[in-house]
């Protein structure tokens, strides 16, 4: 679509975006070869905040490593812990009480909404609109307060334990969560009037940065990036885990393949998460949140285990190779943004730089999660 029009067709220069740049939302560097305003070639340089979580997984015992998961992705931390605890429970055969499973699902969905809200605010701010961020943060704050009361922290939660939860929810939480649902639905309507219908906003996104289905498949993209390009893939539906089969929810899929489609998918996902929370609160069973019988030391039998979950940013995979010891033999963390970011180099060729930055925003990047 974007064909470079220039007076000096052979003249290019290199533009260095980052590693400290507001548009990259973290320490990410992109070396762009430019021809005027158009990108000829781009190379993403990552690894600025690489912390070697996989090695830490090998040298630490299972409970010691648990808190690392929430440091991977600071916006949707619970989803990552969920994947890890599910994996270890599967490997060592720990039974999880039903109440704990439901609370986990509710918490993860609340965290997903909080993450999407922050992304929404930051994304619109990238495009030049400041006030939506303030509205989004107001709603996010409500969620964080709710989670803080139960989990004890606001951002890097370490709430899930092998077999259950650290703390049971009380009636206050249930009431607050019930209040939150109509409040969020009202806000969603507000966002759609304020932002989605805005002409300037739509012109920056509609038809911009088309990602074909083939491209998404080639790079292993997931989350809204794949679903905005017509790929109906959601781990919660395709490889169901935990109590998700009990819930009735839809997977929003758009076929426009542009940045606006990715935006719409995430906004629709907020509504679907609300539906899950609503059903979860209705069905919430009584009972303990930790199992009666649980091994004192977690030692999964030797073998090879894999668990994928749908986090706010896409399909997070956790693979464990155990030799029967106290530490994992190998722990591989497959982070979703790693693959989503990877396609940026190829996709942004021929794009204008403003469009590329809007495209980068629509990928929903969290850099610590790419670098691990």
């Amino acid at each position, binding site marked *: 679509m974007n064909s470079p029009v220039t007076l000096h067709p052979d003249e290019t220069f290199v533009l260095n975006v980052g590693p400290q740049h507001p548009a990259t939302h973290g320490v990410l560097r992109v070396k762009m070869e430019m021809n005027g305003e158009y990108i000829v070639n781009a190379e993403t340089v990552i690894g600025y905040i690489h912390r*070697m979580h996989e090695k830490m997984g090998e040298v630490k015992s299972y409970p010691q490593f648990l808190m690392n998961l929430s440091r991977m992705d600071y916006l949707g931390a619970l989803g990552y812990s969920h994947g890890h605890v599910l994996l270890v429970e599967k490997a060592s055969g720990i039974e999880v009480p039903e109440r704990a499973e439901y609370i986990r699902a509710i918490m993860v969905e609340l965290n997903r909404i909080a993450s999407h809200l922050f992304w929404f605010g930051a994304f619109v701010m990238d495009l030049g609109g400041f006030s939506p961020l303030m509205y989004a943060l107001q709603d996010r704050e409500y969620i964080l307060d709710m989670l803080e009361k139960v989990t004890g922290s606001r951002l890097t939660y370490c709430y899930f334990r092998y077999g259950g939860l650290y703390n049971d929810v009380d009636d206050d939480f249930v009431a607050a969560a019930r209040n939150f649902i109509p409040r969020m639905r009202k806000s969603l309507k507000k966002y759609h009037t304020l932002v989605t219908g805005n002409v300037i906003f739509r012109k920056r996104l509609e038809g911009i940065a088309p990602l074909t289905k083939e491209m998404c498949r080639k790079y292993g993209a997931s989350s809204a990036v794949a679903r905005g390009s017509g790929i109906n893939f959601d781990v919660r539906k395709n490889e169901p885990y935990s109590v998700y089969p009990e819930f009735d929810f839809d997977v929003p899929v758009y076929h426009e393949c542009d940045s606006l489609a990715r935006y719409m998918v995430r906004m629709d996902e907020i509504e679907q998460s609300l539906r899950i929370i609503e059903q979860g609160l209705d069905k919430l069973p009584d009972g303990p949140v930790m199992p009666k019988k649980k091994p004192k030391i977690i030692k999964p039998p030797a073998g090879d285990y894999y668990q994928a979950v749908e986090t706010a940013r896409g399909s997070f995979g956790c693979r464990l190779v155990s030799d029967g010891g106290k530490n994992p033999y190998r722990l591989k963390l497959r982070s979703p943004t790693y693959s989503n970011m990877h396609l940026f180099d190829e996709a942004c060729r021929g794009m204008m730089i403003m469009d590329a930055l809007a495209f980068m925003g629509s990928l929903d990047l969290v850099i610590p999660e790419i670098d691990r």
Partner: protein
Amino acid sequence: LILDLLRAHPQVERGLILGPGLKMSLLSSVVRTRVSRDAAEVPTITDIYAGANWHERETAEFFGINFTGHPHLVPLLLPEDADFHPLRKDYKP
């Protein structure tokens, strides 16, 4: 051919390196190969699945496996002058 997700899962085991394994989610199949520890070399699959590019670079720097034919096999996450392979079991810090 449907390829949705691609994950490199290398591991070092009993003097041999098993890897890289690819998991294709919609096909649910895993491909595995074995290579020797001292001369670890695997042909690249970047020309088939472009998404393998970063995974191969990561595997190369963490495990010291050479991917022959890779277009740009330089360290991705580690510093560019890193000459160690931290996830190998014979690695001593």
